[in-house]
């Protein structure tokens, strides 16, 4: 199971600051070697192509040597953070860091997340729940 941190009330004026906030949550997490480098890599990737997915979802990510295992930092914002190229707002931001060589695990994680996040019921539950422990469960990341 990947390392998961959750921020129930993400407050950020734009995408880079949202990313910065979420990355900092991982500063003391196991598996993170260098938070600064993780942040740089994710910001660089975001600059290439915005990772806004529609339906209020954003998936900023990077495959980086700064982590030794998969790390996720999820942020929820009711007002939304501008992530899209045209300023579309994201209510759920899932930041992913993945070791460079674990492409298969990275793709599987993405696939899993996308499958769950596509379901409006899941998204509604995520937006409503007060318990951060619900997030990994709802996204299929928890080990049963």
């Amino acid at each position, binding site marked *: 199971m990947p390392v998961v941190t959750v921020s129930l009330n993400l407050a950020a004026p734009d995408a880079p600051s949202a990313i910065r906030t979420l990355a900092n949550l991982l500063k003391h997490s196991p598996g993170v070697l260098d938070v600064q480098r993780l942040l740089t890599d994710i910001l660089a*990737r975001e600059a*290439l*192509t*915005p*990772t*806004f*997915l*529609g*339906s209020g979802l954003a*998936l900023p*990510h990077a*495959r980086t040597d700064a982590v030794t295992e998969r790390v996720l930092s999820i942020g929820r914002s009711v007002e939304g953070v501008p992530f*899209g190229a045209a300023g579309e707002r994201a209510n759920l931001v899932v930041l992913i860091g993945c070791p*460079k*060589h674990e*492409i*298969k695990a990275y*793709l599987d994680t*993405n*696939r899993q997340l*996308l499958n769950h996040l*596509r379901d409006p019921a899941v998204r509604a539950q995520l937006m409503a729940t007060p318990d951060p422990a619900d997030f990994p469960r709802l996204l299929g990341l928890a080990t049963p």
Partner: protein
Amino acid sequence: MTGQRLSSLLRLGVKLLERLRPTEAHQNLAWAVLVGILGATMALLFEHATAALQYLFAGQEGASLDVFKELNTWRRLAIPTLGGLLAGVVLTLGQRFIRQEATDYMEAITLGDGNIRARSTLSRSLAALFSIASGEAIGKEGPLVQLAAMAASLCGRVRHLPPARLRLLVACGAAAGITAAFNAPVAGSLFVAEIVLGSLAMETLGPLFFASAASIITMRVFGDSQPLYQLAAFHAPGLYEVLLLGVLGVACGLMACVFQRLLGFFHEAFNRLAWPLTAKLGLGGLFVGLVAVLHPEVTGNGYDVVKSLFSTPTFWDAVLLTLLLKMLATSVVFGSGAVGGVFTPTLMVGACTGFLCWSGFAALFPSLHLQMAGFTAIGMGAMLAAATQAPIMSVLMVFEMTRGYEIIIPLMLASVVGYYTFRATGLTSLYTPRRRVARDVFSRPLEAITVADIMQTRPGTALPTAGFASLARNFLTGGMDRQYVVDRDHRLIGVVRLEDLADYLHSRSLADSIIARDIAYEDAPTLAPDLSLPEALVAFTRAKEHELPVVQKKTCELLGTLSRNDLLLTLAEVGRRNVR
């Protein structure tokens, strides 16, 4: 088109592509169909050109034999001679194009590595055109096959197909050509499989069948679709008739031997004559013309003769004379250096032999009521089986040409007998090239072939920042399911797989969010360009992929890709040549 529509279409396309996953085998079949249509088109063009040229020479249209019968003495003499001279001129001028590897008889094209040079083929076909249109005793199927094969080769080279697949495509072209020439799709495929490729494996037979089918359908749309020789009602023969047909098989095997010797004799004779090519060809034409003055039936490839054997009652002495003159004329013409096919003349010799046998047996055993049509048709098959040493093709060819089911069993019997009789004489098949030139990659010993020799050199690549639209488009137009992510120095970074891209098709914004680098597998297994083929096979077994990139060891530069199918095809062909 709006960006949204385009994106939806691209996503739909990738979704379909991922579901349907056209494999390389399916692509080969699609190419085979295209090449089949092209081959039939070339055949139709050549037929029209021949008819037009014949009209120009003789001032009349119609079947070659009928036309020649109408001509006066002077023209019967002049036209073949003129045709020979013109053919000679074309060949002399085209000498710098024409490669020495060209086989004697045009039907059995040497595939080599699939590079059929256009200029060489066109020169030889033009020369053949002159020879055939002027009535010389050679077959037109040869140029038809060559032109169809050339068209296929051009297609394959434009697409940068690697050697093994190019060879297969050219074989499909040849099959299309034979099919178009004889209206015989099954025999056309088997001709190429048995004589040209020497293999009846399904990887090759499948595309060959498709090409032949496409060719025959095209011919039916634009030309006529009648079987070449209409066989009168043939009843299943009784035991004695079958035995006599077996004797016919022996006779055909021996006659094939005689024909082969005759061809060889004149080939040597003309070789010793130190004249320029044009003069030799002119001499060959002159000979045909002289004979044609008295016996016009010697002109043409013999198709008319066979047709008349089936339809009008003939006397055996007339047939014997025609047979001898025809064999002589064909041998002289080929010996003089004319370019053309020996297929139809062989059929004619077989038909006449069959007819003569029938005459003899019918006189000896009048109570058996032997059938002339059967002997004639089976004579063709047995002769063909003997001379080409391709019995399966021969049986099917005659069957397809006559479309009489009752003929198959005696035909098989006689063909096998003929095949073994000819083999017993120790001569080699008509289509064995006299000069064995082995310059292509498949003729090298296995140890001397490397991955670099047989790989595809234009792999589908993408930059790391390539977006979904560009990746999708490449997959859809390229027909492959792997793209190779390279940096600006063409060094391999990773591999993008179609099935991974397919995960992102759900919505437009989802699709638009990825770039190649996100989903590319780094550390994918690769092949070194200097790897031997057995080593490459081991690599494929370990990697469990159907395609591997070929990467320069030191610089990591992407040089090309090798598909497992191409590797297997190459190994099969190299193995086959080494056994011979």
